[in-house]
């Protein structure tokens, strides 16, 4: 059984505006170790912006984020990455010109240190390092079942597989906190099942904490431990899936009557 732990990520009173558009208004929530935390909300509610704030792509105007005891207001994406946060992107941000293998290898970049000189020679340490990291990446490739596409340029892969590679790249960072932005968009049920399997495995086996944005309520309700609901940049609900499902505001703003 899962041991949900302490708070690892604490978001406090975050506000973010672009010109006149208030993307986020005074949002607070927390994420606990090992849990799967979902963020849902209608389109344009500010979900992706929230992730962008967490990993340093956007700098919120107000509020603070505390990650493993370290509070920050503005950190570069790289610094956040060094603290073990990885993410996937809503609009596929893969490196189009590179193969699947190389894309996932970039996820190991933080761990590779050999400088230009050794790289140029491709001998000794550089080669050893490369082989070691490659082994780790191969494990991820096996795990995601994309062995056959290893050398394919990602641009040629169908959308669903690209999403998987995106996940693979994030996993390669061996993150302790994984932010997933609509990882299952554009997939059919079978593929969603696969994706869920991967997410749950990561969560179970490596104990990775997961923040998940998803529009498929079936998925959200089934696999998340707690759910935050945003609407027009405001938080309108927070709690266990079943509670959220019954929340009037949430039904009105997001779920619609049918669900």
């Amino acid at each position, binding site marked *: 059984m899962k041991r949900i732990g302490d708070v690892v990520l604490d978001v406090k009173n975050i506000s973010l505006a672009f010109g006149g558009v208030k993307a986020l208004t005074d949002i607070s929530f927390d994420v606990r170790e090992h849990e799967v935390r979902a963020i849902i909300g209608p389109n344009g509610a500010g979900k992706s912006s929230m992730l962008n704030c967490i990993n340093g792509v956007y700098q919120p105007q107000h509020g603070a984020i505390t990650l493993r005891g370290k509070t920050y207001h503005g950190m570069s994406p790289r610094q956040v990455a060094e603290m073990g946060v990885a993410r996937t992107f809503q609009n596929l941000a893969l490196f189009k010109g590179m193969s699947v293998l190389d894309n996932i290898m970039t996820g190991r970049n933080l761990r590779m240190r050999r400088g230009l000189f050794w790289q140029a020679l491709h001998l000794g340490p550089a080669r050893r390092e490369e082989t070691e990291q490659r082994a780790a990446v191969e494990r991820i490739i096996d795990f995601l079942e994309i062995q056959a596409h290893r050398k394919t340029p990602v641009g040629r892969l169908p959308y669903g597989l690209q999403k998987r590679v995106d996940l693979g790249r994030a996993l390669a960072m061996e993150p302790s906190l994984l932010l997933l932005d609509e990882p299952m968009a554009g997939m059919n049920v079978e593929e969603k099942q696969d994706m869920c399997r991967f997410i*749950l495995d990561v969560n179970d086996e490596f104990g990775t904490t997961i923040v998940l944005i998803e*529009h498929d309520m079936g998925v959200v309700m089934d696999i998340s431990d707690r759910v935050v609901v945003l609407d027009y940049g405001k938080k309108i609900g927070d709690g266990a899936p079943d509670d959220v499902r019954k929340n009037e505001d949430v039904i009105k703003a*997001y779920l*619609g009557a049918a669900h």
Partner: protein
Amino acid sequence: MSQAPLLDVNGIEVIYNHVILVLKGVSLQVPERKIVALLGGNGAGKTTTLRAVSNLLEGERGEVTKGSIELRGERIEKLSTSAMVERGVVQVMEGRHCFAHLTIEENLMTGAYTRKDGRAAVAATLDKVYTYFPRLKTRRASQAAYTSGGEQQMCAIGRALMANPKMVLLDEPSMGLAPQIVEEVFEIVRDLNAREGTTFLLAEQNTNMALRYADYGYILENGRVVMDGAAAALRENEDVKEFYLGVGGEGRRSFKDVKSYKRRKRWLA
């Protein structure tokens, strides 16, 4: 399907980059005033099929090497995309493709580029689109690049509607939309189909939704049509149920329990 179909795709093959064979003889018919769904997993070739119809393959370095495509009996493989739009066939591209630097409203207005029926008519359509997607109205003055993924999706659909099309090729309309909006989009499809007689060919992953709204469905796997039939019939098919609707023999299975043995699809055997 008694009357001659509006669109008749006959055994087409599509090759990308001269080497990658993607469609291996796909045939399908779309009757006038009907909604036809094109289903299938990732990489099955749905998008490619739609591109072949709307002639958007060239920019992707793809080409139709075999077979024929007819619209109302006219061969259309050689037509340009804009000629297709003039014949009333508009595609909503997968992955949104809004004009990043144009505002939402400008995006919508470009959709009316081929319209010849005057300003007032265009304005009326714009109003219609705004009533379908109120969210767009509130964001009408932002540059499309700065709107959320879902807003862009709405914009792309709305933009196609601005052309007052006879037939719409919808590529993954539900992707990235909130469930409520998905519902709405499909309602809009049904509405347009019923009221204005617009024909739809709809590539979808969301099989459940698609089969609820479509009249007929084709299932594509690996560049071939592996199954087709009336939507209702497909919904009852065991394989479709299991692999596309996620309801195995014993009812809907939780996503939490999927880490089980995967069954092979019967048609691959």
